């Protein structure tokens, strides 16, 4: 079942791979973001950059992906691969890795990316570092995989010296999306992997897509208004939503607000939640536990509103207001509305040109 610990001479392993996760005729943006960083690593190693795209009818997508900086895309086309499924996808990846022996394989730390990477690293018996935020190549040519350690206040350098490939996952919004160059040329390689219906060991019986009725997702928003335990009551999140709407942004929450049952888990920012990287992160009534920082410290500007001047989050704030959020937030809403009706055009977030 697994590859055992027989180590091969690792000099056979060459090339940098990125797992390309298809999503509704497109690529999941974490996959695209990874291409830029993987390009840098491939250039440092003087090797080719390959995207791996298992799917069905994904030729056009493969061609499109080249434009982000790939040298080639390996396409495995099979009806079984039309949607992501753990066993067929891990089988395809394992066989391709055994066949081509890449040195580095990167995955987006999406739900499917983690599902795949976790299964695969046990089958291949090689190292996988989760949620990396930075990469380097060390003096011996190993991939230095840098990830936040417990709580996000320190960074651990993970090395996988003896085993190949070296594998790592990266969360969304850690790297920025590279520009697309439609004129870039690259090779599309079709490969086959033996798959049969018995490899389908689970069936998707129902899918209900998240609607946009909950508003913009915090990961996609340029402005995030995030509420913590200081809000005292779930109904006070309505006030944050109003502020977010005025700024064209989205509402998120701290783990404490989620644990208290005020806000669904899917809005949680931090180590066990999502990572956001907006232009402005407005933290309202959040004291700033270390694990919260891990999910928002890359924001361009951080605004902290808290009654407690000793709240740790003030330490990383660009702007802060020490005051009662129940006065400050309504006042922000009032002034923004006034600006809106004052004949000046309404406040809008800057277009996302850099992502």
């Amino acid at each position, binding site marked *: 079942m697994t590859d055992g610990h027989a180590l091969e001479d690792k000099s056979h392993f060459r090339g940098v791979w990125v797992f390309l996760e298809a999503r509704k005729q497109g690529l999941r943006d974490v996959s695209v973001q990874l291409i830029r960083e993987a390009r840098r690593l491939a250039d440092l190693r003087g090797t080719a950059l390959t995207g791996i795209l298992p799917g069905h009818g994904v030729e056009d997508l493969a061609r499109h992906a080249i434009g982000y900086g790939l040298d080639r895309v390996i396409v495995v086309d099979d009806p079984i691969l039309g949607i992501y499924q753990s066993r067929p996808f891990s089988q395809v990846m394992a066989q391709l890795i055994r066949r081509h022996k890449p040195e580095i394989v990167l995955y987006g730390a999406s739900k499917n990316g983690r599902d795949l990477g976790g299964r695969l690293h046990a089958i291949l018996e090689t190292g996988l570092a989760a949620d990396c935020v930075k990469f380097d190549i060390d003096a011996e040519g190993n991939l230095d995989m840098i990830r936040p350690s417990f709580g996000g206040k320190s960074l651990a350098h993970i090395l996988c010296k003896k085993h190949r490939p070296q594998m790592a996952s990266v969360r969304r919004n850690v790297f920025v999306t590279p520009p697309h160059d439609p004129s870039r040329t690259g090779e599309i390689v079709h490969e086959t992997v033996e798959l049969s219906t018995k490899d389908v*060991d689970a069936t998707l019986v129902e899918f209900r897509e998240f609607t946009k009725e909950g508003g913009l997702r915090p990961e996609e928003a340029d402005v995030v208004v995030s509420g913590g335990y200081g809000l005292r009551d779930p109904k006070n999140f309505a006030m944050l939503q109003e502020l977010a709407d005025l700024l064209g942004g989205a509402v998120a929450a701290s783990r404490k607000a989620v644990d208290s049952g005020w806000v669904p888990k899917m809005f949680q920012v931090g180590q066990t939640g999502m990572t956001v990287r907006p*232009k402005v992160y407005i933290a309202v009534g959040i004291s700033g536990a270390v694990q919260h920082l891990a999910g928002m410290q890359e924001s361009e500007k951080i605004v902290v509103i808290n009654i407690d001047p000793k709240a740790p989050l003030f330490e990383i704030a660009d702007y802060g207001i020490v005051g009662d959020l129940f006065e400050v937030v309504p006042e*922000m809403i009032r002034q923004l509305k006034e600006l809106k009706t004052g004949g000046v055009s309404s406040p809008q977030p800057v277009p996302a040109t850099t992502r």
Partner: protein
Amino acid sequence: MTAAGEAAHRAMRIIVCIKQVPKAQELQVDPVTQTLRRVGVPSEINPPDANALEIALQMKDRHGAEVIVLSMGPTSFDESLERSVAMGADRAVLLTDRILGGSDTVPTAYALSETIQKIGGYDVLLCGEETTDASTGHVGPGIAGHLDLPQITYVSEIRIVDGKVRARRTAEDGTEWWETTMPCLCTVNFGCNRPREPTLSGKIRVKRGGVLVHWSCADVGIDPKKVGLLNSPTIVAKVDTVRLPSRSGQVFSGEAEEAVKKLLAALFADRVIVR
């Protein structure tokens, strides 16, 4: 006989893998050294694992099942295993051995898989989606890979329908219902339920003893050459303290009206919001 057919003749067996972790909320950063103060921090069942246990106990309530809790670590983990039994699990197994120290997710998934096979007769394996201290989420799918089982990750609800497992998975784009055969492995979303408290009768069962066993690697038949720090593919080469990017840290004081006016002016000037 198929696993499903067999399950009709005996109670379903659910094994829940848990880890004991320091309580995340109690952790503080030492302002001088910028490292986490771990000493004296109380422990808890890794919160997503507690959610997995709650799902197992609900399945036991609904369908009747034997719930076995499994962990790997030092004997201080007994505390969480005993709590699990007091909550309603039938018994607990701790894989504890010095040679396991420093194992990364590859040997951990291997050692847990071997222990699960020694327990045997399982229908459903449950893990939390990730641990709050290492937060990789790799061990659950790793076990499924080792044991070549179907896996459904990020699950909030499990139903048994016609001898099959039906699980509600939360992905980025929507809610998915997956159906698979037993035995299988599911990883459970953090916060998807409220784990129950230990009961008095549960605590009495723990006190009476005999609900928890300790196994060594030799007891299970784990290959010592495949576990521990030296047999882990990854190593932590070094740890840097993060110097967070210096920020201007301007605090606006005074009345709310004045402070908000200054704040909005600053944000407009930075062009992160525009008029």
